[in-house]
């Protein structure tokens, strides 16, 4: 069984303690969100899980067959056109060039890009288009585990919803597992099976919320109701410092 298992994970940058005693397991087909205020160590946790940072204390064992990453900013290579940017992950995985280009074109169309955009450089794309390309690049490799680092935070609501529904579609087909970092509770509630609340200084998990209803059954009403409920939670209020002072 593929899974990501994090056990008593601690992390420091210099003398600053960033993360303390993080434990969780992400099973295949599951969506796990980590929510918390900015600067709380969420990104560090994600980087440790994805192997972009070396684990110093504890362990983060990833047995998923493949993984990919979508960042908060698109991080496209400015000197490559749309299709070559999407194909990057495929080529890195050893796919033949012609096949990679073909697959990239197909997924680009699915993600709402036009054929006339294919040859464009990132500088000629809008922010939303760039994020579409970034998502296409992450999903074209058909990862069994997807790392998301607040990829929706700079998008307008329409595009946000469009990209999320692509993910929800994949989730309900059990095609993908997701580790999702966000500070947007509604986003987390729409997508996750489980939400971990990460409190800052140092980052540690204070509470866990579970949502059983299948993601494609969750309508706006459900998401609003659950958001209202979670915002009443004592731990959420103190973690996000929602109290009026």
């Amino acid at each position, binding site marked *: 069984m593929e899974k990501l298992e994090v056990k008593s994970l601690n992390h420091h940058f210099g003398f600053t303690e960033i993360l303390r005693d993080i434990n969780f397991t992400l099973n295949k087909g599951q969506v796990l969100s980590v929510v918390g205020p900015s600067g709380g160590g969420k990104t560090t946790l994600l980087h440790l899980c994805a192997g972009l940072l070396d684990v110093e204390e504890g362990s983060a064992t990833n047995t998923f067959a493949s993984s990919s990453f979508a960042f908060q900013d698109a991080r496209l290579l400015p000197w490559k056109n749309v299709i070559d940017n999407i194909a990057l*992950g495929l080529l890195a995985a050893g796919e033949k060039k012609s096949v990679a280009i073909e697959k990239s074109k197909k997924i680009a169309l699915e993600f709402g890009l036009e054929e006339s955009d294919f040859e464009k450089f990132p500088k000629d794309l809008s922010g939303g288009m760039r994020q579409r390309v970034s998502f296409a690049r992450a999903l074209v490799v058909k990862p069994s585990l997807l790392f998301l680092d607040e990829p929706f935070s700079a998008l307008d609501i329409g595009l946000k919803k469009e990209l999320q529904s692509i993910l929800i579609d994949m989730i309900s087909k059990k095609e993908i597992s997701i580790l999702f970092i966000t500070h947007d509770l509604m986003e987390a509630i729409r997508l996750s099976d489980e939400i971990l609340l990460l409190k800052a200084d140092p980052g540690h998990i204070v509470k866990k919320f579970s949502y059983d209803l299948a993601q494609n059954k969750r309508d706006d009403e459900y998401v609003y109701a659950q958001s209202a409920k979670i915002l009443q939670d004592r731990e959420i209020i103190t973690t996000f410092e929602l109290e009026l002072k």
Partner: protein
Amino acid sequence: MKFTLKILKDFPAYLWSGWGAIASILLFIALWDMGNQIYGNLVLPSPLETFTTLVAMLADENVIAEIKTTLYRASVGFGISLVVGTSFGLLAGFFATASMMSRPIVTILVGMPPIAWIVLAMIWFGMGDETVIFTVIVASFPIIFVGALQGTRTLDGDLKEMSDSFKLPWHMKFFDVYFPHIFSYVFPAWVSGLGMAWKIVVMAELLATSDGIGASLAVARSQLDTPTALALVVIMIGSLMFVEYIILEPIKREVELWRS
């Protein structure tokens, strides 16, 4: 290969876009002719006289030999600067300490006037090829070094992280992530280094040798032969413009299409 073809394909369109430049050069020549009519032939020979002299000079084997000598010195000097400057610059860029240490040294190299280098080189190497080549190297090396250093220092950490997350193999990391970025810094540095080399070589020759374009310029001065002096200047500027606008600029345009 595909790249070279694209440059060739876009070349006619590029040339066609040069009418504006040609018009401004012609305007400059017209002003030059006006200057001649005001100040007379000795001070400023007419463009026509200069170009007639130029044609006559280019037919003369001795002049061609002088040009070749200068060309040889400039290419050797610039070539050494290019190879050494680029590799040292890249290397220094990869190590924080090395780039920190090299900064003041580069400032000294850039800040030292070339004329001072020529004097030192004349003392060290005497009158000859070495003096000129040395001066060309010290003048163009810092420019190329700094370009390469900046190229590696400014590599984008976010893109590196992205390439790590997709587990790019080392050759893809180099050719797809690092190289285009570094090249976009190094190439313009090469171009300015080349311009510098070409100017310095003539200056060094004028002071330190008895052959080459610079030396011919010195002879023309002592004989008050203004048309020849101007014709030599035209050769220098013409060759520099040819290399820069006909060869390098089209390459630069293709390479930097992605830049905003």
